[in-house]
């Protein structure tokens, strides 16, 4: 027993509670957390059903320019986060109805309107889902005025549509460009071990089916398009940032609002139809007749050479200085766009070759980073502001899970092996080891 506050304080100090978490929990949670973070950062690209950060990499190479890629990232951000319906079981008729509908849903369609800062106009994406794991996106964008053919009437902006079809069970994708009649068959090689599982987790309709027990915050009621709706905000870790509005009387989703990471913009999902009849041809992975077929493969076998080449190209495109982050944030995209303007305009063939070269290199760079982190190793980037060619300053270091030494990459892209990670400068983050222990103690929690 205790008689005073001080007694109680002393008493609690002498408690001996087992403070060790379950073995492997720290490392596994870190992996999960970074994966959730990556999803929230809209790393997903439309050409990638893998459902993890690799997904965004695949998309980078497929898309025609950065803006389209960014638009696709919006759409996939919605996909990546999925939609949880935040059902209080039995508390309201509306959500009981929602649960019943979602449980029985095998198909669904909706429209996503993405508004982002990098784009002058919203991007409209019609989405079709078929459980389990099939998805079709029809992405429509206005062609910028300067890029429209002269024959087009000026008053009516031209649009271009890209169709992306994914099968998350087969891990295959087909990208269609109806304007140019091009079909790109996407093949994935050496996918990470968890890719299949991750892909299944990204199945939008599957997410809905799981969502009935999600935690939520009540947002009250309002009117959307003349309908009285009830709002719920997800408090579930994977679904943060999405507000769902359902018909107050039927529980059918009316609108879902998502705020994108990195202040990129917003996505509004509307026109939900549950269990529409969807023809199998919508999800066919065969190229339509009359289309020129191109094949694009994405090899996730990562090498240090790929990492180095990616770093070299990235720094070169950022004016000879390593950027703030290796993540394709809007800031980085803008920086790369600006760099393009400073260079002589390439021919169409040169631009295409350049695009492919950079896409491949950047994919390798990102895949390397993600593969190390996903496997429980360390990958630390500290290169912001370091000049390409600086032989004395580290820009990154990594250590695979079971490796004995760190590999340190310097500004001139030579590598060195070391038993210890470099000590970070005061303004850089501490190394984050998979074990949670910083080798140099820099990230040890303050006592």
């Amino acid at each position, binding site marked *: 027993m205790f008689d005073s506050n001080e007694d109680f304080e*002393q008493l609690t100090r002498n408690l001996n509670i087992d403070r060790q978490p379950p073995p492997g*929990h720290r490392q596994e949670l870190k992996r999960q957390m970074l994966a959730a973070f*990556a999803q929230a950062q809209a790393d997903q690209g439309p050409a990638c059903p893998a459902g993890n950060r690799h997904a965004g990499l695949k998309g980078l190479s497929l898309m025609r320019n950065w803006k389209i890629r960014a638009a696709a990232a919006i759409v996939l951000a919605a996909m990546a986060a999925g939609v949880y319906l935040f059902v209080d079981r039995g508390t309201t008729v509306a959500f009981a109805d929602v649960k019943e509908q979602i449980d029985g849903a095998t198909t669904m369609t909706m429209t996503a309107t993405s508004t982002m800062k990098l784009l002058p106009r919203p991007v409209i994406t019609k989405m079709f889902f078929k459980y389990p794991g099939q998805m079709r996106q029809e992405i429509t964008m206005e062609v910028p005025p300067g890029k429209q053919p002269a024959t087009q009437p000026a008053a009516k902006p031209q649009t271009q549509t890209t169709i992306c079809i994914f099968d998350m069970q087969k891990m295959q994708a087909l990208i269609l460009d109806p304007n140019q009649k091009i079909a790109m068959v996407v093949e994935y090689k050496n996918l990470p071990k968890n890719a299949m599982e991750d892909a299944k987790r990204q199945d939008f309709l599957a997410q809905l089916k799981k969502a009935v027990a999600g935690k939520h915050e009540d947002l009250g009621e309002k009117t959307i398009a003349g309908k009285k709706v009830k709002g719920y905000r997800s408090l579930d870790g994977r679904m943060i940032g999405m507000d769902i509005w359902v018909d107050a009387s039927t529980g059918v989703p009316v609108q879902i609002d998502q705020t994108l990471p990195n202040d990129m913009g917003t996505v509004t999902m509307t026109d939900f139809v549950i269990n529409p009849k969807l023809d199998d041809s919508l999800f066919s992975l065969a190229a339509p007749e009359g289309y020129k077929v191109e094949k694009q493969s994405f090899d996730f076998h990562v090498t240090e050479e790929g990492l180095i080449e990616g770093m070299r190209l990235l720094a070169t495109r950022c004016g000879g200085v390593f950027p703030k982050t290796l993540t394709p944030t809007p800031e980085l995209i803008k920086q790369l766009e600006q760099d393009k303007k400073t260079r002589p305009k390439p021919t169409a063939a040169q631009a295409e070759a350049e695009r492919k070269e950079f896409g491949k290199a950047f994919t390798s760079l990102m895949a390397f980073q993600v593969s190390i982190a996903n496997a429980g190793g360390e990958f630390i980037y500290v290169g912001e502001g370091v000049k390409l060619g600086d032989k004395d300053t580290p820009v990154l270091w990594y250590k695979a899970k079971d490796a004995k030494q760190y590999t340190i990459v310097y500004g001139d892209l030579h590598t060195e092996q070391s038993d210890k990670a470099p000590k970070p400068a005061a303004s850089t*983050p*501490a190394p984050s080891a998979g074990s949670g222990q910083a080798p140099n103690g820099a990230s040890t929690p*303050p006592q």
Partner: protein
Amino acid sequence: MSMTATKTGAESFGDDIVVRARTDPQALGSLYDRYYDKVFRYCLHRLFVTDVAADVTSSVFLSVATHIRRFEGTTEADFRNWLYAISTHEVDSWIRSTKRRAELLRAAAMSGRLKLAGGCEPQPDRNTEWPELYQAIAKLKPKHQALITLRYFEGVPYEQIAQILHGTPAGLRVMTSRALKKLRKLLKRSQPGKAGDCHV
């Protein structure tokens, strides 16, 4: 067991990380490394069972990963308070949703996890005293539970708790005294004739 809230060199180093963590996974990973133990320990002190504490810790960090882009704090102290607030919310939610706190206590007691330490070696008939303490804490209001755990188990200063639980330091001190008074009553009720056991 305690956590200081003083501004240190390490903390200002962490301020930079907090800002970067909104967009940089490496910075977020660093914050995770710094705070995993603290969050897990806090959850364990409130929930008693390792596996449950681990599950709730997972919820906390997954929530952080997806919320952090909206986090407006700029210092490590801001982040720490935010993290404890999320942890408190997750713990409370878990308790509310499962209503199995009594089961937790039984599980903790049966596993021998709750026992005396230091110079006060547990006696067979005394092992139950600590579950009784936790049972008594569990009977407090959730806010009082969080307050007691933060203050006495985690060593968080009142000024910081005020930000986590949305109160004033003075008000929380009063609330603490009331909570401890209630705790004493609950313990006396559960331990008739046992006053003055293993004092520290």
